[in-house]
């Protein structure tokens, strides 16, 4: 097994764990945690391909990962703001209890 395959398998495993968390948990914050894990797994793929790719000096994968980290930070801020807003409105973060779109 080459190192690149090891990193790709680890990223796939972390992605699957994050997806399972996002799909099975009831608390909205835990769903966001799952989404963060999935984004991180994608970043690991980008860095691994940058490291073992043919032209690491071009910095393409590294830049992709850095911008991805920045976008993920923005996503986390807006997502958690939405969770706080929904909690103020519905007094719960249980996703199974939120069954209507009208406030």
């Amino acid at each position, binding site marked *: 097994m080459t190192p690149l*395959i090891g990193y790709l398998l680890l990223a796939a495993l972390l992605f699957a764990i994050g997806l399972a968390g996002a799909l099975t948990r*009831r608390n909205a914050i835990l769903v966001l945690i799952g989404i963060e894990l999935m984004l991180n797994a994608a970043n690991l793929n980008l860095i691994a391909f940058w*490291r073992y790719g043919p032209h690491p000096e071009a910095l393409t994968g*590294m830049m992709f990962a850095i911008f991805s980290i*920045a976008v993920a930070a923005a996503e986390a801020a807006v997502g*958690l703001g939405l969770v706080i807003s929904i909690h103020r409105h519905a007094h719960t973060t249980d996703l199974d209890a939120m069954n209507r779109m009208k406030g």
Partner: protein
Amino acid sequence: MSIVFYVIAGLAVAGALAAVLLKNTVHCALALTVAFAGLALMFLELDAQFAGFAQILVYIGAVAILVVFAILLTRGSETPKDTVYSRNWIVGLVTAAGIFAMLAWAVLHSAQALPGPGGTTAAVPSVTVMDIGNALMSRYVLPLEIVALLLTAALIGAVIVAMHEKESAK
């Protein structure tokens, strides 16, 4: 594969599993920090120093703290009496397992197409933070500006969304 890889991978996977499996939400947030730290170590092991330290600063320093704040503000730290999993959790678990199986199958069956010499002797890319700064300020200056705009918009948007609406509450 070196022993370091397996140790860090075990740390990251254990943190991720704990983050999605633990009952107490605060414990989940702390386990998430462990998973982020494992991934940052993985970046450092991949000779991506800048990305590794950016991961530590952004994820452990900002996102994890934000998650803890959100948990405390929404009183999510109270462990619910009944189950913490969704009603149709089995569907989600099967979907995640299927996607992992598909990804692993795709990775293992494309070993020839993957780039690089494949051995552990792949040359370490000599990329300094100065190179990254030069690239950010020359070739990637437009994406950098767009990300700056996006972060500003997200900051304002998050404040407006989470702001207390006194007028509409009446």
